[in-house]
Protein backbone atom coordinates (compact mmCIF):
# COMPACT_ATOMS: atom_id res chain seq x y z
CA UNK A 1 0.00 0.00 0.00
CA UNK A 2 1.25 3.43 -0.85
CA UNK A 3 0.15 6.03 1.67
CA UNK A 4 0.76 9.78 1.67
CA UNK A 5 0.06 11.58 4.93
CA UNK A 6 -0.28 15.38 4.97
CA UNK A 7 1.18 17.50 7.75
CA UNK A 8 0.43 21.17 8.26
CA UNK A 9 2.83 23.20 10.42
CA UNK A 10 0.86 25.32 12.90
CA UNK A 11 1.88 27.70 15.71
CA UNK A 12 2.59 25.80 18.92
CA UNK A 13 -0.78 25.76 20.76
CA UNK A 14 0.89 27.37 23.77
CA UNK A 15 1.90 30.46 21.81
CA UNK A 16 0.14 33.76 22.11
CA UNK A 17 -1.26 34.81 18.75
CA UNK A 18 -0.99 38.46 17.78
CA UNK A 19 -2.61 39.99 14.72
CA UNK A 20 -0.15 41.56 12.25
CA UNK A 21 -0.05 45.28 11.31
CA UNK A 22 -2.02 44.90 8.11
CA UNK A 23 -4.61 42.85 10.06
CA UNK A 24 -4.55 40.09 7.46
CA UNK A 25 -2.87 37.32 9.41
CA UNK A 26 -1.07 36.67 12.67
CA UNK A 27 2.52 37.68 13.32
CA UNK A 28 4.21 34.41 12.53
CA UNK A 29 7.92 35.22 12.39
CA UNK A 30 8.68 34.62 16.07
CA UNK A 31 6.44 31.61 16.59
CA UNK A 32 7.49 28.00 17.06
CA UNK A 33 5.68 25.63 14.73
CA UNK A 34 4.60 22.06 15.37
CA UNK A 35 2.62 19.51 13.38
CA UNK A 36 -1.11 20.19 13.56
CA UNK A 37 -2.48 17.74 16.12
CA UNK A 38 -4.83 15.82 13.82
CA UNK A 39 -1.90 15.20 11.48
CA UNK A 40 -0.10 13.23 14.18
CA UNK A 41 -3.13 10.97 14.43
CA UNK A 42 -3.14 10.65 10.62
CA UNK A 43 0.54 9.72 10.47
CA UNK A 44 0.14 7.19 13.27
CA UNK A 45 -2.74 5.59 11.36
CA UNK A 46 -0.59 5.49 8.20
CA UNK A 47 2.25 3.80 10.10
CA UNK A 48 -0.11 1.21 11.60
CA UNK A 49 -1.56 0.42 8.17
CA UNK A 50 1.93 -0.04 6.82
CA UNK A 51 2.92 -2.30 9.71
CA UNK A 52 -0.09 -4.46 8.93
CA UNK A 53 -0.02 -4.47 5.14
CA UNK A 54 3.51 -3.40 4.13
CA UNK A 55 4.10 -0.52 1.76
CA UNK A 56 5.42 3.00 1.74
CA UNK A 57 4.49 5.97 3.91
CA UNK A 58 5.42 9.38 2.52
CA UNK A 59 4.68 12.63 4.35
CA UNK A 60 3.85 15.85 2.58
CA UNK A 61 3.92 19.41 3.82
CA UNK A 62 3.65 22.83 2.21
CA UNK A 63 5.33 25.70 4.02
CA UNK A 64 8.64 27.38 4.80
CA UNK A 65 11.46 26.11 7.04
CA UNK A 66 8.89 25.25 9.68
CA UNK A 67 7.48 22.61 7.32
CA UNK A 68 10.92 21.01 6.99
CA UNK A 69 11.04 20.74 10.80
CA UNK A 70 7.66 19.03 11.13
CA UNK A 71 8.65 16.69 8.29
CA UNK A 72 11.86 15.74 10.15
CA UNK A 73 9.75 14.88 13.20
CA UNK A 74 7.46 12.80 11.02
CA UNK A 75 10.42 10.90 9.60
CA UNK A 76 11.63 10.30 13.16
CA UNK A 77 8.18 8.93 14.04
CA UNK A 78 8.62 6.37 11.27
CA UNK A 79 7.61 7.75 7.86
CA UNK A 80 9.77 6.45 5.01
CA UNK A 81 10.29 9.67 3.10
CA UNK A 82 9.18 13.28 2.97
CA UNK A 83 8.15 15.82 0.36
CA UNK A 84 8.50 19.49 1.17
CA UNK A 85 6.57 21.94 -1.00
CA UNK A 86 8.79 24.94 -0.70
CA UNK A 87 8.49 28.09 -2.74
CA UNK A 88 7.96 31.72 -1.74
CA UNK A 89 5.20 31.68 -4.35
CA UNK A 90 3.14 29.29 -2.19
CA UNK A 91 2.71 31.91 0.51
CA UNK A 92 -0.75 33.37 0.97
CA UNK A 93 -2.54 30.30 -0.38
CA UNK A 94 -6.11 29.73 0.76
CA UNK A 95 -7.51 26.22 1.22
CA UNK A 96 -8.30 25.96 -2.48
CA UNK A 97 -4.80 26.88 -3.65
CA UNK A 98 -3.24 24.78 -0.88
CA UNK A 99 -5.28 21.75 -1.93
CA UNK A 100 -4.47 22.20 -5.60
CA UNK A 101 -0.75 22.43 -4.83
CA UNK A 102 -0.84 19.37 -2.58
CA UNK A 103 -2.80 17.45 -5.23
CA UNK A 104 -0.26 18.28 -7.92
CA UNK A 105 2.53 17.01 -5.68
CA UNK A 106 0.69 13.75 -5.05
CA UNK A 107 0.21 13.33 -8.80
CA UNK A 108 3.88 14.05 -9.43
CA UNK A 109 4.75 11.40 -6.87
CA UNK A 110 2.74 8.90 -8.91
CA UNK A 111 -0.49 9.08 -6.89
CA UNK A 112 -1.28 6.94 -3.86
CA UNK A 113 -3.64 4.23 -2.68
CA UNK A 114 -4.49 6.27 0.35
CA UNK A 115 -4.01 9.94 1.22
CA UNK A 116 -4.53 10.96 4.85
CA UNK A 117 -5.13 14.48 6.10
CA UNK A 118 -6.26 15.90 9.42
CA UNK A 119 -9.97 16.52 9.97
CA UNK A 120 -9.13 20.16 10.57
CA UNK A 121 -6.02 22.18 11.29
CA UNK A 122 -5.31 23.78 14.67
CA UNK A 123 -4.98 27.29 13.24
CA UNK A 124 -7.26 28.20 10.34
CA UNK A 125 -9.23 25.04 10.95
CA UNK A 126 -11.67 25.14 8.06
CA UNK A 127 -11.54 21.38 7.56
CA UNK A 128 -11.76 21.75 3.80
CA UNK A 129 -8.34 20.79 2.54
CA UNK A 130 -8.74 16.99 2.57
CA UNK A 131 -12.06 17.00 0.74
CA UNK A 132 -10.81 19.53 -1.81
CA UNK A 133 -7.73 17.40 -2.31
CA UNK A 134 -9.96 14.42 -3.10
CA UNK A 135 -11.83 16.38 -5.77
CA UNK A 136 -8.62 17.70 -7.36
CA UNK A 137 -7.25 14.15 -7.47
CA UNK A 138 -10.54 12.57 -8.52
CA UNK A 139 -10.33 10.17 -5.54
CA UNK A 140 -13.15 8.92 -3.33
CA UNK A 141 -13.11 10.30 0.21
CA UNK A 142 -14.47 10.00 3.73
CA UNK A 143 -14.35 12.64 6.46
CA UNK A 144 -14.15 12.50 10.29
CA UNK A 145 -12.67 9.02 10.29
CA UNK A 146 -12.30 7.14 13.60
CA UNK A 147 -11.36 3.71 12.29
CA UNK A 148 -9.73 2.30 9.13
CA UNK A 149 -9.60 -1.25 7.83
CA UNK A 150 -7.83 -1.73 4.52
CA UNK A 151 -7.98 -4.68 2.16
CA UNK A 152 -5.06 -4.05 -0.22
CA UNK A 153 -5.80 -7.20 -2.26
CA UNK A 154 -9.37 -6.10 -3.01
CA UNK A 155 -8.28 -2.45 -3.03
CA UNK A 156 -11.07 -1.44 -0.70
CA UNK A 157 -11.41 0.32 2.61
CA UNK A 158 -13.90 -0.05 5.40
CA UNK A 159 -14.00 3.16 7.36
CA UNK A 160 -15.82 4.28 10.48
CA UNK A 161 -16.97 7.90 10.55
CA UNK A 162 -18.15 9.97 13.47
CA UNK A 163 -21.31 11.99 12.89
CA UNK A 164 -23.00 14.48 15.20
CA UNK A 165 -25.01 13.44 18.23
CA UNK A 166 -23.22 10.21 19.08
CA UNK A 167 -23.92 8.50 15.76
CA UNK A 168 -21.23 6.53 13.95
CA UNK A 169 -21.41 5.14 10.46
CA UNK A 170 -19.41 2.58 8.56
CA UNK A 171 -18.79 3.13 4.86
CA UNK A 172 -16.97 1.21 2.17
CA UNK A 173 -14.91 2.90 -0.49
CA UNK A 174 -12.37 1.91 -3.12
CA UNK A 175 -8.71 2.81 -3.49
CA UNK A 176 -7.53 5.46 -4.22
CA UNK A 177 -9.10 7.50 -1.44
CA UNK A 178 -8.55 10.50 0.78
CA UNK A 179 -9.49 10.18 4.45
CA UNK A 180 -9.66 13.04 6.94
CA UNK A 181 -8.62 11.65 10.29
CA UNK A 182 -10.43 12.62 13.48
CA UNK A 183 -8.62 13.37 16.75
CA UNK A 184 -8.38 10.39 19.09
CA UNK A 185 -8.46 7.62 16.44
CA UNK A 186 -5.30 6.18 18.04
CA UNK A 187 -2.51 7.14 20.44
CA UNK A 188 0.32 8.56 18.32
CA UNK A 189 3.76 7.20 19.12
CA UNK A 190 6.69 9.36 20.13
CA UNK A 191 9.87 9.37 18.08
CA UNK A 192 12.46 7.07 19.61
CA UNK A 193 16.14 7.97 19.73
CA UNK A 194 16.71 5.30 17.09
CA UNK A 195 13.98 6.87 14.98
CA UNK A 196 15.57 10.29 15.26
CA UNK A 197 18.94 8.89 14.15
CA UNK A 198 17.38 6.94 11.29
CA UNK A 199 15.47 10.03 10.11
CA UNK A 200 18.72 11.76 9.23
CA UNK A 201 19.35 9.25 6.46
CA UNK A 202 15.83 9.35 5.02
CA UNK A 203 14.88 11.18 1.85
CA UNK A 204 13.48 14.69 2.19
CA UNK A 205 12.99 16.29 -1.19
CA UNK A 206 11.78 19.81 -1.93
CA UNK A 207 9.55 20.72 -4.85
CA UNK A 208 8.78 24.21 -6.12
CA UNK A 209 5.81 25.48 -8.14
CA UNK A 210 7.88 25.01 -11.31
CA UNK A 211 8.69 21.41 -10.31
CA UNK A 212 4.96 20.77 -10.03
CA UNK A 213 4.25 22.46 -13.35
CA UNK A 214 1.91 24.91 -11.64
CA UNK A 215 1.68 28.37 -13.17
CA UNK A 216 1.96 31.42 -10.94
CA UNK A 217 -1.74 32.26 -11.12
CA UNK A 218 -2.68 28.92 -9.52
CA UNK A 219 -0.49 29.03 -6.42
CA UNK A 220 -0.22 31.19 -3.30
CA UNK A 221 -2.12 34.44 -3.14
CA UNK A 222 -2.97 34.66 -6.86
CA UNK A 223 -4.38 31.12 -6.74
CA UNK A 224 -6.61 31.91 -3.76
CA UNK A 225 -10.37 32.12 -4.24
CA UNK A 226 -10.76 34.85 -1.67
CA UNK A 227 -8.76 37.57 0.01
CA UNK A 228 -8.51 38.27 3.70
CA UNK A 229 -10.02 41.69 4.40
CA UNK A 230 -9.42 41.70 8.11
CA UNK A 231 -8.54 39.42 10.99
CA UNK A 232 -9.90 40.69 14.31
CA UNK A 233 -10.86 39.62 17.79
CA UNK A 234 -14.66 39.69 17.82
CA UNK A 235 -16.42 41.84 20.33
CA UNK A 236 -18.14 39.43 22.63
CA UNK A 237 -21.81 40.15 22.96
CA UNK A 238 -21.65 38.33 26.19
CA UNK A 239 -23.59 38.40 29.39
CA UNK A 240 -20.58 37.23 31.39
CA UNK A 241 -19.84 38.78 34.72
CA UNK A 242 -16.13 38.50 35.42
CA UNK A 243 -15.46 38.03 39.10
CA UNK A 244 -12.24 39.59 40.30
CA UNK A 245 -9.97 39.35 43.31
CA UNK A 246 -7.49 36.75 44.47
CA UNK A 247 -8.42 33.15 43.70
CA UNK A 248 -9.89 32.74 47.21
CA UNK A 249 -11.83 36.01 47.06
CA UNK A 250 -13.17 35.28 43.58
CA UNK A 251 -14.19 31.77 44.61
CA UNK A 252 -16.06 33.11 47.65
CA UNK A 253 -17.82 35.81 45.60
CA UNK A 254 -18.78 33.26 42.95
CA UNK A 255 -20.35 30.92 45.48
CA UNK A 256 -22.36 33.83 46.93
CA UNK A 257 -23.64 34.70 43.47
CA UNK A 258 -24.49 31.11 42.60
CA UNK A 259 -26.53 30.86 45.79
CA UNK A 260 -28.17 34.28 46.03
CA UNK A 261 -28.31 35.57 42.45
CA UNK A 262 -28.48 32.56 40.13
CA UNK A 263 -29.99 30.38 42.86
CA UNK A 264 -28.61 27.21 41.33
CA UNK A 265 -27.11 25.73 44.48
Amino acid sequence: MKIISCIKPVPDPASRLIINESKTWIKDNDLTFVASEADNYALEEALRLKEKHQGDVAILSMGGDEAARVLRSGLAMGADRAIHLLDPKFKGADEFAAAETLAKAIEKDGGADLVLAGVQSDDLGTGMTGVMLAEFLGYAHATVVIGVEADPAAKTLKVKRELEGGINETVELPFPAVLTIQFGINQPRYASLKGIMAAKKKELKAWSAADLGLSDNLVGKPGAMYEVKEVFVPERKSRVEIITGTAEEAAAKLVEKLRKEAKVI
Partner: protein
Amino acid sequence: MIFVITEHRDNKLKSITSEALVFAQRVGQDFGQPVTAVVLGANVSGLADELKTKKIDRVIVAEHPDLAEYSPDRYVEALKTILGNEKPFLVIVGHTTQGMDFAPRLSVSLRRPLIAGCVEYEKQGDRLILTRQVFNAKMNMKTGVRGESPYFATASPGAFQADELQSGGNAEIVSVAVQFSGPVRRKLVERVEAPRGMVDLSAAPIIVAGGRGLKEKDNFKIVFELAEALGASVGASRPVVDSEWLPREYQVGSSGQTVSPKLYFAVGISGAIQHLVGMQTSRCIVAINKDVEAPIFKVAHYGIVDDLFKVVPALTKIFKDLKVS
Protein backbone atom coordinates in the same frame (compact mmCIF):
# COMPACT_ATOMS: atom_id res chain seq x y z
CA MET B 1 -30.59 33.97 -6.34
CA ILE B 2 -29.61 32.52 -3.00
CA PHE B 3 -29.74 28.77 -2.50
CA VAL B 4 -29.90 26.86 0.76
CA ILE B 5 -29.05 23.16 0.55
CA THR B 6 -31.24 21.67 3.26
CA GLU B 7 -30.11 18.90 5.60
CA HIS B 8 -32.49 16.27 6.88
CA ARG B 9 -32.52 12.83 8.42
CA ASP B 10 -35.42 10.42 9.01
CA ASN B 11 -37.72 12.81 7.18
CA LYS B 12 -37.04 15.68 9.57
CA LEU B 13 -35.25 18.91 8.74
CA LYS B 14 -32.18 19.54 10.89
CA SER B 15 -32.09 22.76 12.89
CA ILE B 16 -29.02 23.88 10.92
CA THR B 17 -31.36 24.20 7.92
CA SER B 18 -33.45 26.84 9.73
CA GLU B 19 -30.23 28.64 10.67
CA ALA B 20 -28.99 28.56 7.07
CA LEU B 21 -32.38 29.87 5.92
CA VAL B 22 -32.13 32.80 8.37
CA PHE B 23 -28.70 33.59 6.90
CA ALA B 24 -30.23 33.39 3.40
CA GLN B 25 -33.26 35.54 4.25
CA ARG B 26 -31.03 38.26 5.65
CA VAL B 27 -28.60 38.28 2.71
CA GLY B 28 -31.59 38.06 0.38
CA GLN B 29 -33.19 41.16 1.86
CA ASP B 30 -29.95 43.15 1.81
CA PHE B 31 -29.04 42.21 -1.75
CA GLY B 32 -32.56 42.05 -3.16
CA GLN B 33 -32.16 38.40 -4.09
CA PRO B 34 -34.82 35.68 -3.91
CA VAL B 35 -34.22 32.59 -1.76
CA THR B 36 -34.56 29.00 -2.92
CA ALA B 37 -34.37 25.95 -0.65
CA VAL B 38 -33.13 22.73 -2.23
CA VAL B 39 -34.23 19.33 -0.91
CA LEU B 40 -32.44 16.25 -2.16
CA GLY B 41 -33.83 12.86 -1.18
CA ALA B 42 -36.40 10.18 -1.86
CA ASN B 43 -40.00 10.71 -0.74
CA VAL B 44 -39.33 14.15 0.68
CA SER B 45 -42.49 15.99 -0.43
CA GLY B 46 -43.44 16.45 3.24
CA LEU B 47 -40.25 18.43 3.80
CA ALA B 48 -41.01 20.60 0.77
CA ASP B 49 -44.47 21.34 2.17
CA GLU B 50 -42.92 22.38 5.46
CA LEU B 51 -40.37 24.65 3.75
CA LYS B 52 -43.09 26.20 1.60
CA THR B 53 -44.54 27.92 4.68
CA LYS B 54 -41.30 29.85 5.28
CA LYS B 55 -40.78 33.27 3.81
CA ILE B 56 -38.82 32.11 0.79
CA ASP B 57 -39.51 32.18 -2.93
CA ARG B 58 -39.09 28.64 -4.11
CA VAL B 59 -38.44 25.08 -3.03
CA ILE B 60 -36.60 22.84 -5.47
CA VAL B 61 -37.15 19.16 -4.84
CA ALA B 62 -35.02 16.52 -6.50
CA GLU B 63 -36.17 13.00 -5.72
CA HIS B 64 -34.31 9.88 -6.74
CA PRO B 65 -33.89 6.47 -5.09
CA ASP B 66 -30.11 7.08 -5.06
CA LEU B 67 -30.68 10.13 -2.86
CA ALA B 68 -32.48 8.19 -0.13
CA GLU B 69 -29.19 8.11 1.80
CA TYR B 70 -26.71 10.96 1.64
CA SER B 71 -23.77 10.26 -0.66
CA PRO B 72 -21.10 12.82 -1.59
CA ASP B 73 -20.90 11.58 -5.19
CA ARG B 74 -24.67 11.84 -5.68
CA TYR B 75 -25.01 15.18 -3.90
CA VAL B 76 -22.24 16.77 -5.97
CA GLU B 77 -23.70 15.44 -9.21
CA ALA B 78 -27.28 16.46 -8.37
CA LEU B 79 -26.28 19.93 -7.20
CA LYS B 80 -24.13 20.54 -10.25
CA THR B 81 -27.18 19.82 -12.40
CA ILE B 82 -29.53 21.97 -10.33
CA LEU B 83 -27.19 24.95 -9.90
CA GLY B 84 -26.07 24.69 -13.52
CA ASN B 85 -29.58 25.59 -14.70
CA GLU B 86 -29.72 28.69 -12.52
CA LYS B 87 -27.71 31.80 -11.82
CA PRO B 88 -26.90 31.45 -8.14
CA PHE B 89 -25.30 34.32 -6.26
CA LEU B 90 -24.73 32.53 -2.97
CA VAL B 91 -25.14 28.86 -2.05
CA ILE B 92 -25.43 28.19 1.69
CA VAL B 93 -24.74 24.81 3.26
CA GLY B 94 -24.66 23.89 6.96
CA HIS B 95 -21.21 23.68 8.53
CA THR B 96 -21.90 20.12 9.66
CA THR B 97 -20.23 16.77 9.05
CA GLN B 98 -22.54 16.31 6.07
CA GLY B 99 -22.17 19.84 4.69
CA MET B 100 -18.39 19.76 5.01
CA ASP B 101 -18.37 16.36 3.31
CA PHE B 102 -19.64 17.63 -0.06
CA ALA B 103 -19.40 21.45 -0.19
CA PRO B 104 -15.58 21.50 -0.66
CA ARG B 105 -15.88 19.01 -3.55
CA LEU B 106 -18.56 21.13 -5.19
CA SER B 107 -16.45 24.26 -4.80
CA VAL B 108 -13.45 22.62 -6.45
CA SER B 109 -15.40 21.02 -9.27
CA LEU B 110 -16.94 24.40 -10.18
CA ARG B 111 -13.75 26.31 -9.30
CA ARG B 112 -15.73 28.77 -7.19
CA PRO B 113 -14.93 30.07 -3.67
CA LEU B 114 -16.15 28.38 -0.50
CA ILE B 115 -16.00 30.23 2.79
CA ALA B 116 -16.43 27.69 5.57
CA GLY B 117 -17.78 28.37 9.05
CA CYS B 118 -19.48 31.73 8.43
CA VAL B 119 -20.86 33.58 11.43
CA GLU B 120 -21.76 36.95 9.88
CA TYR B 121 -21.69 38.92 6.65
CA GLU B 122 -21.60 42.52 5.48
CA LYS B 123 -22.72 44.36 2.42
CA GLN B 124 -20.00 46.71 1.16
CA GLY B 125 -21.45 48.46 -1.86
CA ASP B 126 -22.66 45.54 -3.92
CA ARG B 127 -19.95 43.24 -2.56
CA LEU B 128 -20.61 40.46 -0.12
CA ILE B 129 -18.10 40.17 2.72
CA LEU B 130 -18.34 36.89 4.61
CA THR B 131 -17.01 36.64 8.16
CA ARG B 132 -15.83 33.33 9.50
CA GLN B 133 -14.23 32.06 12.67
CA VAL B 134 -10.55 31.16 12.68
CA PHE B 135 -7.92 30.11 15.24
CA ASN B 136 -10.31 28.02 17.31
CA ALA B 137 -12.97 30.74 17.37
CA LYS B 138 -10.59 33.17 19.06
CA MET B 139 -10.54 35.44 16.04
CA ASN B 140 -12.80 36.26 13.14
CA MET B 141 -11.76 36.81 9.55
CA LYS B 142 -13.55 38.96 7.00
CA THR B 143 -13.14 37.55 3.54
CA GLY B 144 -13.77 38.97 0.11
CA VAL B 145 -14.63 36.36 -2.49
CA ARG B 146 -13.05 36.72 -5.91
CA GLY B 147 -14.41 36.38 -9.40
CA GLU B 148 -17.88 35.56 -10.63
CA SER B 149 -20.63 34.00 -8.54
CA PRO B 150 -21.74 31.46 -7.37
CA TYR B 151 -20.05 31.74 -4.01
CA PHE B 152 -20.37 28.94 -1.49
CA ALA B 153 -20.62 29.42 2.26
CA THR B 154 -21.17 27.08 5.18
CA ALA B 155 -23.12 28.44 8.13
CA SER B 156 -21.51 27.83 11.51
CA PRO B 157 -23.99 26.10 13.88
CA GLY B 158 -25.46 28.56 16.36
CA ALA B 159 -24.33 31.68 14.50
CA PHE B 160 -27.77 32.41 13.05
CA GLN B 161 -30.79 32.04 15.31
CA ALA B 162 -33.30 29.47 14.09
CA ASP B 163 -36.13 31.30 15.89
CA GLU B 164 -35.59 34.32 13.64
CA LEU B 165 -36.73 32.32 10.64
CA GLN B 166 -39.55 34.26 8.98
CA SER B 167 -42.57 32.34 7.80
CA GLY B 168 -45.66 33.45 5.95
CA GLY B 169 -44.48 32.81 2.44
CA ASN B 170 -46.11 30.70 -0.15
CA ALA B 171 -43.16 29.38 -2.04
CA GLU B 172 -43.52 27.65 -5.33
CA ILE B 173 -42.49 23.99 -5.25
CA VAL B 174 -40.54 22.91 -8.30
CA SER B 175 -39.65 19.28 -8.94
CA VAL B 176 -36.43 18.72 -10.81
CA ALA B 177 -35.56 15.42 -12.42
CA VAL B 178 -31.99 14.34 -11.84
CA GLN B 179 -30.12 11.59 -13.60
CA PHE B 180 -26.81 10.16 -12.59
CA SER B 181 -23.99 8.90 -14.74
CA GLY B 182 -21.09 8.71 -12.29
CA PRO B 183 -20.46 5.92 -9.79
CA VAL B 184 -21.37 5.92 -6.09
CA ARG B 185 -17.93 5.22 -4.76
CA ARG B 186 -18.64 5.47 -1.06
CA LYS B 187 -21.32 3.10 0.19
CA LEU B 188 -23.05 3.17 3.55
CA VAL B 189 -22.73 -0.12 5.40
CA GLU B 190 -24.39 0.78 8.68
CA ARG B 191 -25.22 3.65 10.98
CA VAL B 192 -25.27 3.03 14.72
CA GLU B 193 -25.39 4.91 18.00
CA ALA B 194 -21.95 5.09 19.54
CA PRO B 195 -21.70 2.98 22.72
CA ARG B 196 -23.02 5.07 25.61
CA GLY B 197 -21.16 3.64 28.56
CA MET B 198 -22.07 4.11 32.20
CA VAL B 199 -21.96 7.88 32.42
CA ASP B 200 -25.22 9.56 31.46
CA LEU B 201 -24.81 13.28 31.91
CA SER B 202 -28.12 14.22 30.29
CA ALA B 203 -29.99 14.25 33.60
CA ALA B 204 -27.21 15.59 35.83
CA PRO B 205 -28.27 18.81 37.61
CA ILE B 206 -24.68 20.00 38.09
CA ILE B 207 -21.65 19.18 35.93
CA VAL B 208 -18.02 20.08 36.52
CA ALA B 209 -16.23 19.68 33.19
CA GLY B 210 -12.47 19.82 32.72
CA GLY B 211 -10.42 20.48 29.60
CA ARG B 212 -6.88 20.43 28.30
CA GLY B 213 -6.04 23.28 30.67
CA LEU B 214 -5.64 20.64 33.36
CA LYS B 215 -2.38 19.68 31.61
CA GLU B 216 -2.22 16.04 32.71
CA LYS B 217 -4.29 13.11 33.80
CA ASP B 218 -3.34 13.20 37.49
CA ASN B 219 -4.42 16.82 37.78
CA PHE B 220 -7.98 15.79 36.93
CA LYS B 221 -8.43 14.79 40.56
CA ILE B 222 -9.09 18.43 41.45
CA VAL B 223 -12.10 18.32 39.10
CA PHE B 224 -13.39 15.16 40.79
CA GLU B 225 -12.86 16.74 44.21
CA LEU B 226 -14.88 19.81 43.28
CA ALA B 227 -17.59 17.62 41.79
CA GLU B 228 -17.73 15.52 44.94
CA ALA B 229 -17.99 18.56 47.19
CA LEU B 230 -20.89 19.79 45.05
CA GLY B 231 -22.58 16.45 44.55
CA ALA B 232 -22.03 17.00 40.84
CA SER B 233 -21.16 14.82 37.85
CA VAL B 234 -17.87 15.11 35.94
CA GLY B 235 -17.62 15.93 32.24
CA ALA B 236 -14.75 16.60 29.86
CA SER B 237 -13.78 18.20 26.58
CA ARG B 238 -12.66 16.04 23.73
CA PRO B 239 -8.86 16.31 24.08
CA VAL B 240 -9.16 14.92 27.62
CA VAL B 241 -10.78 11.82 26.18
CA ASP B 242 -8.48 11.62 23.14
CA SER B 243 -5.48 11.65 25.50
CA GLU B 244 -7.12 8.84 27.49
CA TRP B 245 -7.30 10.77 30.76
CA LEU B 246 -10.97 9.74 30.91
CA PRO B 247 -13.16 7.32 28.92
CA ARG B 248 -15.16 8.57 25.90
CA GLU B 249 -18.44 8.56 27.82
CA TYR B 250 -17.41 11.68 29.77
CA GLN B 251 -17.16 13.81 26.64
CA VAL B 252 -19.49 16.78 26.21
CA GLY B 253 -20.01 18.30 22.77
CA SER B 254 -21.02 17.71 19.18
CA SER B 255 -19.42 14.28 19.09
CA GLY B 256 -20.17 13.52 22.73
CA GLN B 257 -23.13 14.12 25.02
CA THR B 258 -25.45 17.09 24.87
CA VAL B 259 -26.19 18.39 28.33
CA SER B 260 -28.30 21.14 29.82
CA PRO B 261 -27.81 21.12 33.60
CA LYS B 262 -28.80 23.97 35.86
CA LEU B 263 -25.11 24.60 36.60
CA TYR B 264 -22.11 23.85 34.36
CA PHE B 265 -18.51 24.55 35.32
CA ALA B 266 -16.07 24.77 32.40
CA VAL B 267 -12.61 24.40 33.89
CA GLY B 268 -9.66 24.95 31.53
CA ILE B 269 -11.93 24.61 28.48
CA SER B 270 -11.47 27.15 25.69
CA GLY B 271 -15.00 26.92 24.30
CA ALA B 272 -14.59 25.61 20.76
CA ILE B 273 -17.86 25.49 18.84
CA GLN B 274 -17.94 21.68 19.03
CA HIS B 275 -17.87 21.91 22.81
CA LEU B 276 -20.33 24.81 23.04
CA VAL B 277 -23.06 23.06 21.06
CA GLY B 278 -23.09 20.37 23.72
CA MET B 279 -23.58 22.62 26.75
CA GLN B 280 -24.57 26.17 25.86
CA THR B 281 -28.20 25.74 26.86
CA SER B 282 -27.17 25.09 30.49
CA ARG B 283 -29.04 27.43 32.84
CA CYS B 284 -25.95 28.82 34.51
CA ILE B 285 -22.44 28.50 33.10
CA VAL B 286 -19.28 29.26 35.06
CA ALA B 287 -15.99 29.51 33.18
CA ILE B 288 -12.61 29.27 34.89
CA ASN B 289 -9.87 30.10 32.43
CA LYS B 290 -6.68 32.13 32.57
CA ASP B 291 -7.20 33.55 29.08
CA VAL B 292 -9.73 36.38 29.06
CA GLU B 293 -10.10 36.03 25.28
CA ALA B 294 -11.18 32.37 25.45
CA PRO B 295 -14.50 31.99 23.59
CA ILE B 296 -16.03 30.13 26.55
CA PHE B 297 -16.61 33.55 28.14
CA LYS B 298 -19.01 34.31 25.32
CA VAL B 299 -21.53 31.82 26.67
CA ALA B 300 -20.63 31.94 30.37
CA HIS B 301 -22.74 33.77 32.97
CA TYR B 302 -19.92 34.04 35.49
CA GLY B 303 -16.22 33.96 34.79
CA ILE B 304 -13.03 33.84 36.80
CA VAL B 305 -9.92 34.77 34.83
CA ASP B 306 -7.21 33.09 36.83
CA ASP B 307 -5.15 29.94 37.26
CA LEU B 308 -7.53 27.01 37.64
CA PHE B 309 -5.06 25.26 39.94
CA LYS B 310 -5.71 28.03 42.47
CA VAL B 311 -9.42 28.66 41.86
CA VAL B 312 -10.71 25.09 41.80
CA PRO B 313 -9.23 24.00 45.15
CA ALA B 314 -10.50 27.26 46.68
CA LEU B 315 -14.02 26.49 45.44
CA THR B 316 -13.79 22.91 46.69
CA LYS B 317 -12.85 24.14 50.13
CA ILE B 318 -15.81 26.51 50.30
CA PHE B 319 -18.31 23.86 49.22
CA LYS B 320 -16.87 21.37 51.70
CA ASP B 321 -17.21 23.93 54.49
CA LEU B 322 -20.78 24.71 53.39
CA LYS B 323 -21.68 21.04 53.55
CA VAL B 324 -20.36 20.73 57.08
CA SER B 325 -22.25 23.76 58.35
